[in-house]
């Protein structure tokens, strides 16, 4: 499942993940992400941080509050390379992160790292 407010990045994620053989469900922000979470029942979540309505931190906290998804791998996709943002994402419950600029290889590598 991917959560990003940018149509560009959403489509890139979709193409990259589809090419790597993943089925992908998209959400445009944290709120939509939480809304579709149960139905999507994803194996791994890739989320942006900076989003309207509900940002990545809030979204991750929301996912972790759901008993069913408390241990699901969540990767944060963000241009922020500073440690503070990463730390906040981690505290919210993120499993790992992928530093933009978006690179398909990095994305797939990171997903493979956190999934069996």
């Amino acid at each position, binding site marked *: 499942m991917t959560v990003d*407010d*940018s*149509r*560009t*990045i959403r*489509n*890139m994620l*979709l*193409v990259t993940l589809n090419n790597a053989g993943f089925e992908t469900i998209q959400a445009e922000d944290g*709120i*939509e992400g*939480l*809304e579709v979470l149960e139905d999507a029942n994803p194996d791994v979540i890739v989320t942006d941080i*900076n*989003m*309207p*309505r*509900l940002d990545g931190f*809030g979204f991750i*906290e*929301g996912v*972790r*509050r759901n*008993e069913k998804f*408390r*241990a*699901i*791998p*969540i990767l944060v996709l963000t*241009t922020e*390379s*500073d*440690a503070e943002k*990463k730390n906040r994402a*981690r505290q919210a*419950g*993120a*499993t*790992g*992160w*992928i*530093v*933009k*600029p*978006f*690179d398909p*290889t*990095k994305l797939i*590598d*990171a997903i*493979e*790292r*956190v*999934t*069996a």
Partner: protein
Amino acid sequence: MDMNEIKEIFFQECEEQLAELESGLLRLNDGDRDPETVNAVFRAVHSIKGGAGAFGLDDLVSFAHVFETTLDCVRSNKLEPNQEVLKVMLKSADVLADLTNVARDGGSVDQARSKQLIRELEALANGTPLPTASAAPAPAVAPKAKPAAPAPVAEAAAPAANDQGFTPVAFSFDDFGGDEPEVSELPAYDIIFKPKSDLYTKGNEATLLLRDLSRLGEMSIHCDMSDLPSLDQLDPEAAYFWWKISLKTDKGEDAIRSVFEFAEWDCDLEVSKVGGEGVVAESDLPMQPVPFDLSALDAESDAPLGVTEEEENLVAQRDEAIAAAETANNVVQMAGNAARAAASDKGAAAAAAQNNAQQASSAAAPTIRVDLDRVDRLINLVGELVINQAMLSQSVIENDANGTSSINMGLEELQQLTREIQDSVMAIRAQPVKPVFQRMARTVREIADITGKSVRLVTEGENTEVDKTVIDKLAEPLTHMIRNAVDHGLETPEKRLAAGKSAEGTVKLTAKHRSGRIVIELSDDGAGINREKVRQKAIDNDLITADANLSDEEIDNLIFHAGFSTADKVSDLSGRGVGMDVVKRSIQALGGRINISSKPGHGSTFTMSLPLTLAVLDGMVVTVAGQTLVVPLTAIVETLQPEAAAIHSFGATQRLISIRNSFCPLVDVGRILNFRSTQANPVEGVALLVESEGGGQRALMVDAIQGQRQVVIKSLEANYTHVPGIAAATILGDGRVALILDVDSVVSASRGQSLQLEASLAAAG
């Protein structure tokens, strides 16, 4: 979908983000201090940067990065978004738009300008005084600026520098396949890995980390289970196991640490090179060597890695304990869920946020994106439907005179429905003029900068909707008019102050709907038109005779003549070779009219009236020399039946009609269009009084009026070729093609003499 399509999406999105950015900055400029406004502005730049990075658009990324950094200062209240700051930011938004366009269409940007803005943005972010453009002329400073300006791209590409010592996910597992290095010569590392329970709650798994580690080289693992308490004290969520790992690899310590990148905070990790400085003391704990077997993972074995067979029964016990604990947990949870949700501040807040957002999402009108081609196809089909319906009605009326028949009633309903469908389809293409108005804000800023004038742009009615084609074609004439208004209309601050006005000039742009058209007004509070100068220039250019007696309005409208410029010197702006005549032509090409009114000392107002759509037209169907023509209803002021006494001949060909004691030139449409070789007798026809360009009136002579109806416009140029005097064509209810008259061009075809004629008439009395 391929990368090119995604890139197209990116540029579309950029346009939206740039509009969002500018409107947000303008709101801040108006004193809006809502954090969400600042956030939206930040997000817009951030989003552009993110997408640009993915496509390797380095110029765009580096500018967006500096811009974003400064915006972040505003977001975190380190920088007050005052007028000065926002001025820099609005200019930066312009440059960002330029860079986006260059990234899409090629070309180059004004490097000096973007470098200057980067310096200004950095100065704002650092809280240092703004470097002035005059003090630092671009060419002299450009080389100096290089070391000062960080290279954000490089920084983004290698974030390790300012991270906490780890590299991002930069290595590829592919590197580790293939040729096996000679094991014995490889450096050996001892690794101690003690996960904390947080590791598991964040979705990391020790097994996956060990798997990745094993890919670095030859590895053996010892699992320590000495921390495992007796079952009654077992916390199912705690981490009890830890591992001691021996790894032989030539990838280095960094590669080892990067495996634990995501887990660094949630485990104790010691990495030491065997034989190196920090040799770990041999653990006193009894350890069993465990062969690390990846196939266990592949087979989805439930047995945790590093657990030997002897201990599996222990693990089984542990699993049972976990299961039991979880069951117990669930029961407690079910009972306590409601209470917990209420008690947990975070939970309640999040729930509230979710509710709010849900309300917000239901309040916002949902939208879908549709390809423009599809809409146009629909519009075309509806056009055909309208024509078909009209033809059907007509043939029914011709064949069945009985107006009460159910067929007639059905037809009326069909007509009603068709009209509604047509209106709805047109509404799909209608868009607010806001984006065009926003672009004008930028034009004003640029011209104000170049001319050294202080200008405020006020816009009204930005949400007025009009057909997309009209909007698209509006930008160019409007830009030129804005340039003129600032360059020629407004005075310099000194002159303004001397005239008792504020130093800052105001340009006002408004849009509104008026009787089925959109009216756009552009006014300035400048000096107004210098009529003496315009008149003199017109005489010099042989546009009018020296003794012509023109009304103020007529003099003002002279500026729409080709090659007319009253600027004393050709400035940077007026040197672009576009005059108001071109503006007028583009407005006319849209089926619009443009007028100017001016008050000396108080400014000028341009008024444009444009059709809401270019697809349909309300027209009067008339007959001229056996041909059926359609005259746009908006052009017609009134219709009248001329009486012989009202017709006056003037010279060999000119005729005038007196209407309520004023004279108006008669124009025989049939003659102008070469439908007939001699002029028709006005008394036998009908005169359509139309308003022409200069505001003057003409009486167009036609043979008869058939009626009024809405017609679907079919481009003549697209299907045939341009015909002078004809704007377009349409298909009537009886299936015949009718030409739509271009009133202004018919009038101007008859104009040459009549302007002078009017002048001499006016002089005569």
